[in-house]
């Protein structure tokens, strides 16, 4: 086989290795088969839940919660971040708060949110949005603050109004960094939604499905649900990377 063809197969090496390790671990009985089903069984089961459609209510519930949390966080976070970033004194005054809560695992705040919102769907969405909004604000603000001064000055010498400098230059300058915030934000939102579904009483969602399967010792369902969750996170990230590459074509080049 030609070398360049082999090179293109490289990304598959990791998954293949994991698959082999997993099936060896099961067939060689390194791990008890009651705790870990073989990979083929797990994947077959995953096809099964998709074929029968039994996964869809849970998958859909998780996607919807993540989506609402993300959209809410973006709608507030991006304008707020851009506004804060364009006024360094104001950003400085709230920087500690943003950094503090950004560093606090949002899952630690679940009990607090339960006090406020009760055991509701809104609660899960709110806490996921809270986790996402902080990274979104932070990145949008830094995007604006780190805008190339030369571009702003160039616009100034053209006699462009302050409003248009903001809209045409600062906002565009902040986009690459804003997108990093959005991508991180949606990943964080998914993480928190899954955790919330596990620990805040829930009737559906992938998190709920995973913990339910564990409780009744349906390990095939547990592992396949974990795989679905992983795939969901992966695809959300992938979608964002594709949009980013299309929209921010100059990212990293200028």
């Amino acid at each position, binding site marked *: 086989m030609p070398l360049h063809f082999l090179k293109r197969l490289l990304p598959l090496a990791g998954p293949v290795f994991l698959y082999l390790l997993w099936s060896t671990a099961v067939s060689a009985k390194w791990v008890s088969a009651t705790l870990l089903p073989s990979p083929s069984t797990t994947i077959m089961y995953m096809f099964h839940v998709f074929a029968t459609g039994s996964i869809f209510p849970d998958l859909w519930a998780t996607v919807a919660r993540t989506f609402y949390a993300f959209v809410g966080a973006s709608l507030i976070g991006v304008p707020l971040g851009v506004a804060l970033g364009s006024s360094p004194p104001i950003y400085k005054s709230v920087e500690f708060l943003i950094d503090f809560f950004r560093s606090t695992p949002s899952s630690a705040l679940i009990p607090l949110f339960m006090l406020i919102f009760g055991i509701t769907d809104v609660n899960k969405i709110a806490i996921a949005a809270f986790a996402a909004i902080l990274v979104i604000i932070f990145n949008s603000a830094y995007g604006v603050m780190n805008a*190339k001064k*030369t*571009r702003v*000055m*160039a616009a*100034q*010498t*053209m*006699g*462009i*109004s302050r409003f*248009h400098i903001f809209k*045409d*230059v600062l906002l*565009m300058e902040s*986009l690459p960094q804003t997108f990093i915030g959005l991508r991180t934000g949606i990943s964080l939102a998914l993480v928190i939604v899954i955790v919330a579904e596990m620990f805040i009483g829930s009737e559906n969602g992938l998190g709920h499905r995973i913990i339910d399967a564990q409780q009744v010792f349906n390990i095939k369902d547990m592992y396949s649900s974990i795989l679905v969750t992983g795939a969901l996170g992966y695809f959300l990230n992938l979608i964002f990377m594709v949009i980013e590459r299309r929209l921010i*074509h*100059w990212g990293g*080049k*200028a």
Partner: protein
Amino acid sequence: MEKAMQEVGSKRAHVTIQKLCKEFAGVTLYKDFNLDIKKGKIVSVFGPNGCGKSTLINMIAGLMKMDSGQVLFDGKTLEQTKIGYVFQNYRDALFPWMTAWDNIAYPLKRMGMNKAQVCARVEELINLFEIKFNLKQFPYELSGGQQQTTSIMRALACEPEVLFLDEPFSALDFEMTLFIREKLQETNLKTGVTMVIVSHDLEDAVFLADQILLLTRRPTQIAALLNFDMARPRLAQSVSEPEFIAIKSEALKIFQHEMHRSA
């Protein structure tokens, strides 16, 4: 675009700088600095490191605040005057989210021109600069010289009265420097735009100049304002003519004198 101001106005001061003062962290950079720049002329600013060449044009162009003093353009304030500014670092000055064409068109659109007017003006600039490369490309797809050409075209788009250039050649290779020098000279001859160029290369400074402004060390004063009337258009080979060499060595002598005076 043709402005018959060259002959009429060549003797008249265009940019008047009066009593300009500027301190940096307690160090006096400029104190009661006065300078007249003549209309339609090209002035090169040359001087020792740290004497504030760029600071001077940045203050005139309004990119940096002066502590006190006044700058007038034909008696008007900066706000009433159209200027153009070309940065040393074209990569950071162009808007990478727009194509080169849109970069050039941007100030025109923001001025309120309609599509047809914008196209006509950009077309004019394309002809003036004899652009052969594809302007529908994004800046990061262009070579350094093409990017700097684009940013000069953008700075000239609104037909500014004064064009400031801050070390426009320092990031370019020699071939590109020759091309842009030639184009700047042509633009000055065709449109009568006054130009102020900061340069750290004496040959570049002299080549384009009607006047060479030599600055002293801090606190910065005018060491000399040399007139250089060599006929235009000057060609690449003009730099080896006696007239050129004479003014260059005179400028060098003054520069070296300044270097040793207070070092």
